[in-house]
C-alpha cells in the first residue's frame, strides 16, 4: 500500500530515464561509480589503521633482535646479524589490550636506509635501541643515526613517539639512561651545527631539511615535536635465561602509548 503513492513517480522517472540518450546515462553512471570509488579509496588509505607498527631500530649489535624475541615470547634466543626485517603482532599489556605490529629492522649500515624508507611511514612509535656498554666509543655513530631519524621529513610530520632503550644494562660498565641522554644532546648539538650550516646557504640540500630543536639554544630532547623517553633495559638479563628487566619499563611505556 505504501508503494502506490510512489509508483507514479517511479513510473515517470523511468519514462524520463528511457527518454534520455543511453550514452549520456552510461556517462552519468560511470561518473557516479568513479566518485564512489574515490571516496572508498580515500577512506581506506588514510584510515588510522595504517600507522600501527612499532619499529625497533638501532646500530648493529645493539640487541634489537633479542629484544624482539623477548617482547614477543619472553624466551632467550641466540641471534645473528639480521639481514632482513622481522615482524610479528604484539599484544600490549595494557587495559585496552591493543595490538600492533612489532617490526625489527636490521641495523647494519648498508641496509639501514632502505628498510627505514620502507617502514617509516607506517611507524606509530620508534624504539631506538642503544648499546649502553660501548656507548662511549659509538657516541658519534649513534648520534648520527638519531639525527638522520629526527630530521627525516616523514618522521617529523607524523611525530611518532620515540623511546630510547638503553640496552645491555646487565654489563657492569653500562652507562645510565641519564648519562646517555646528556651525551646525545651534546653530540646532536654539534651535529646540527655542522649539518645545518649547509642548509642555510644553499638551496636544494640533501636529506633532512629540518633544524633540530630551537635556534640559539642548546639542543634538548624536550624541544622536539615528538615524545621522547629514555628507559633502561636488559634483554639478556643476568644469567641469559631471565629477562624480566627487559619488559618492565618498556611495557609501561607501551601502556602510556596510544
Amino acid at each position, binding site marked *: 500500500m505504501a508503494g502506490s503513492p510512489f509508483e507514479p513517480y517511479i513510473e515517470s522517472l523511468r519514462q524520463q530515464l528511457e527518454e534520455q540518450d543511453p550514452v549520456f546515462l552510461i556517462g552519468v553512471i560511470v561518473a557516479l561509480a568513479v566518485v564512489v570509488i574515490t571516496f572508498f579509496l580515500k577512506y581506506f588509505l588514510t584510515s588510522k589503521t595504517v600507522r600501527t607498527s612499532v619499529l625497533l631500530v638501532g646500530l648493529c649489535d645493539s640487541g634489537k633482535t633479542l629484544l624482539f624475541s623477548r617482547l614477543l615470547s619472553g624466551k632467550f*634466543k641466540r641471534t645473528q646479524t*639480521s*639481514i632482513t626485517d622481522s615482524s610479528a603482532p604484539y599484544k600490549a599489556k595494557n587495559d585496552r589490550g591493543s595490538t600492533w605490529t612489532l617490526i625489527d629492522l636490521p641495523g647494519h*649500515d*648498508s641496509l639501514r636506509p632502505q628498510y627505514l624508507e620502507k617502514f617509516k611511514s607506517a611507524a606509530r612509535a620508534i624504539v631506538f635501541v642503544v648499546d649502553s656498554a660501548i656507548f662511549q666509543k659509538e657516541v658519534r*655513530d649513534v648520534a648520527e643515526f638519531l639525527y638522520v631519524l629526527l630530521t627525516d621529513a616523514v618522521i617529523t610530520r607524523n611525530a611518532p613517539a620515540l623511546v630510547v632503550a638503553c640496552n645491555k644494562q646487565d654489563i657492569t660498565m653500562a652507562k645510565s639512561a641519564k648519562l646517555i641522554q646528556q651525551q646525545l644532546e651534546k653530540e646532536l648539538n654539534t651535529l646540527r651545527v655542522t649539518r645545518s*650550516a*649547509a642548509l642555510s*646557504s644553499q638551496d636544494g640540500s640533501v636529506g633532512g631539511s629540518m633544524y633540530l630543536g630551537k635556534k640559539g639554544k642548546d639542543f634538548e630532547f624536550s624541544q622536539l615535536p615528538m615524545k621522547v623517553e629514555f628507559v633502561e633495559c636488559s634483554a639478556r638479563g643476568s644469567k641469559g635465561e631471565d629477562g624480566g628487566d627487559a619488559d618492565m619499563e618498556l611495557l609501561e611505556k607501551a601502556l602510556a602509548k596510544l
Partner: protein
Amino acid sequence: MLDFFTIFSKGGIVLWCFQGAGVTESFTGPVNALIRSVILQERSGNSSFSHGGLSLKYKLDNEFELIFVVGFQKILTLTYVDKFINDVQLRFRDRYKNELEQKGALKLLNNSFEFENDFKVLLSVAEESSKARGPAGMRTFEQSGKSQKTVKSMIETKGGDKGKEQGGKKNKNAKKEAPAAQPAKGDQDKASASGQKMVENGNQSLTAEEILQKNREEFFRKHRPGASEKPSKSPKPQKPKGKQNRVWNNGGSSTRDLDYSDKNGNGSPNGAEQNLEAQFDPEMQPASMKGDLLSVEYESSDEEEMEEEDEEVVIRETSKPSSKKGGGLFGMLKGLVGSKSLTREDMEPVLEKMKDHLIAKNVAADIASQLCDSVAKKLEGKVMGTFTTVASTVKQALQDSLVQILQPKRRVDILRDVMEAQSQRRPFVITFCGVNGVGKSTNLAKISFWLIENGFTVLIAACDTFRAGAVEQLRTHQRRLNSLHPPEKHGGRPVVQLYEKGYGKDAAGIAMEAIAYARNQAFDVVLVDTAGRMQDNAPLMTALAKLIAVNMPDLVLFVGEALVGNEAVDQLVKFNQALADHSMSDKPRLIDGIVLTKFDTIDDKVGAAISMTYITGQPIVFVGTGQTYNDLRSLNARAVVSALMKA
C-alpha cells in the same frame, strides 16, 4: 669433525645450532663476519669463506628465508661438506615446512626445532660416504672414450673443423684433379672410416701438390661468397621463419634506443644550465661551500621509464623467435598469476642481459658477473608474488644490491672527525694516492676550500717531489685560497699554508715533518699530496706504503677517475696489496675511502663507482664534478643506481 652448524633465519633468529665436541668458542663472531663480508657485500658467488682458522660454508634458502652455515677447521679438507649442507637443507625443510611457511616471526620464536637426531644421522651418512670411496682403479683401454673415436675424427689440421671438412673436400678434389697420382687412395676416400689408411692419407695430404691444391681451395673459398657461407650457415629449420633482422651489437634491441631526440631534450638543457651556473659564479662565492656537501645531482624522474622498460623486456621475451614460442607465452602467463619459484634457468637470460647492460655502463666485467652470480644466489628458490615477472624481480633485486653496495658501511662525516681531532689537539691527516693524472692535486685544492669554508685551518704537504711543477701548482692554489679567505677575516693567520721542501727529497720524511709542524702550529687538517704512480711499479708502491705506514694518517683516500673501466679493479687491488705487504704492523692501514673524480665527463656510465666500492668495500667519500673549487659533491647512492639501471 665439524666445528659447528647453525640454521638461522634471515631476520637473525637462530633456529637450531650444533657445536662440535670440544669446541668452546662461540660461533657467533665468525658467522657475523661471514654475513657482513660476504652476504652483505654481494660476494655470494663463491660459497666458502675463511675467518681465522675456520673455514665456513653456507647455503641460502630463499624460499623460507633461512641461512645454513657450517664451520670447520681450515686445515681439514672435508669433501662431503657441500653435499651435506644440501641434504640438511632438504631434510630441515621437509620436516618443518608448516612452521616455516608462516609469514610472521612468531612461529620461529615459539617453536624449538629438535633437529639433533636427523642431523646426527645425516652427518654419519656423509662421513661414511666420504670414507667409502677408495682410490679409483684405472680404466682399461676398451672402457676409455678414446677407443670409441675414429682416427679420422682425431686428425687435427690447421683449420680445425673446417680443416677436417676441408680435408675431406680437398681429398675429393685432389682425387678429381690428380687422379693419376693416387688412384688407390682415392678409392679409399670413399669409405668414411677405415682406420690406418685414412691416417696415411691425411699424412700424405701434406705433400707439395696437395699443399698447392689446399691453398688454391682456400683462396677460392674466400673469394666465393656462396661457398664461404656454407659452413657458417645457420641450421635449416630456421629458414621458414623468414628473414631474421640483423642484430647489431651497439644498436640496442629496438629502434627506440636509436632515437636520441628525447635524451638530448632532457639531458643537455640540465647540463647546460649547470654549466652556465658554474660560469656565472663570480669568483667562487666564499660562503657557498659551507657545511655538508651537496650530493651529485641526477634527474630522478625515471620511474616511469623503468616501468616501460620492464614491459618492453617482457614483450621482447615473448616475441623472441624460438621453436618453443607457444610454450614461452604460456609460461609467461603462468608466471604472472600464482606463485612460481625461481630457478636458475629462468633467471639466466635476464641476468645475461643485465650483465651486458652493466658492462655497457662501464662496470668492470668480472665485477658485473660476480654481482649477477650473487643476485642469482639470493633469488634462487624464491617464490614470486602474483603479477610479477622474472625480469622485474631480478631487476629489483639487482637494484637493491647495487644500492646496498654503494651505501657506506661506516659513518662518513669528515667534519665531525676533524672536530674530534681538534678536541684532542692533534691535526687530522688525509693522504691522497692514486695513479697518474686522476686529479689528486685539483681535488686536494677543492677539499681544502671546503674545509676552509667550514672554519678549519689547512696545511698542505707537498709530498709530490717528482713531477715538475707539482709544488708550484700547490703554491698557486694556496695563494688563491688565501685571497678568497683573507687572513684578516680569520683571526690574523692565513687559513692555508704550504709545507714543501722542493724536489727530489723523500716523500715520507716530508710528510712526517709536515705533521709535526702542523701539531706545533695548531693546524686543524693536514692534506698530503703524493705523486701519481702506476700500480705495478714496485719501487714506487713501496715508497707509498712506507709513507702511509710511517705517518699513520687518519684517512687514506684513493683518488680514481670515473672514466676508468676494468683498470679500476687492477689499480685498487694492487694498491691495497702494496699497502698490506709493506706495512710492518699486523693491522696494516689500507685504503679508507675513495674520491671519484671527473664525474662530469661521464654521462650516465657511472659503473666505475660500483667497481671501486665493490672491490674495496670502502665508501666513496667525495665526488669531483668539475675543475673549479665548488665542484665537490657527496655521493647519492639512489641517484647513481637509477642512472645505472636506466635504459
